[in-house]
């Protein structure tokens, strides 16, 4: 039960950040593939950098255990990513 409510709250902040970055808009998404607006990349890489430092700092301090890391299966990740990119650039999600 706690996990459900907690996830709802995390989702709330997630959606809030996405909307504030403008990533709920079609042109923001598609323009990263046209190299005319790199907001998606700036946003993604900032998220990556912050979460990386945060999670591994807490992990090093022994406070946080690492969860299951998304599995690598090269062909699947590659083909899935290729299909995903078509939908993303086409629809602009």
């Amino acid at each position, binding site marked *: 039960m706690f996990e459900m409510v907690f*996830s709802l709250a995390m989702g709330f902040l997630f959606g809030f950040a996405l909307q504030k970055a403008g990533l709920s808009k079609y042109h923001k998404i598609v323009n990263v593939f046209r190299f005319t607006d790199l907001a998606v990349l700036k946003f993604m890489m900032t998220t990556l950098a912050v979460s990386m430092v945060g999670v591994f700092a807490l992990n090093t301090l022994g406070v946080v255990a690492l969860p299951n890391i998304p599995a690598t299966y090269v062909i699947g990740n590659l083909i899935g990513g*290729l299909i995903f990119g078509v939908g993303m650039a086409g629809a602009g999600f």
Partner: protein
Amino acid sequence: MNLLKQKEWSPYLAGTLLGLVYVISIAVTGIIPGASGAFENIGGLIAQSLYPDLAKNTYFQFVMPPGITTAVMILLGIMIGAFVSAKLSGDFKLQTVSDDQWKRVFGKATWKRWLVLFVGGIILEFGAGIAGGCTSGLAIGGGLFLAPSAFIFIAAMFASGIPVAMLMYWRKY
């Protein structure tokens, strides 16, 4: 308060907020936030009620079990959060075709936008199912652990996204 009412944040600020969300979520519950999995959980539920035999396949039994999971709660939260953010900044509008750039390039026809959205959504979700996640769950959620899967996925996403955008925009690319 002023900041909350702004229409658009710098991507660095919004990205920092999302980064903190990942840290808090992983620290408190060990859940890596993602968006695409929820659709599969809900899709599995629908399959269970309409085509029970179909829902008994390996994918729904072991990879993505149907049900109202934490992923569904995150997705619900994303919608509410985005709505509140848009409401606060006065950015919220009900429109059938919402994007000015789309209207300029592809016209105002509603059916065209909705068709592309619908088909694009299916393609995107299908791809995310194969890859094991989407931009949030795999690219960021895996990337922060330097998982190879995340970087293969990001590279592949751009490798197909760029030519698709080129084809769609053609001379306007």
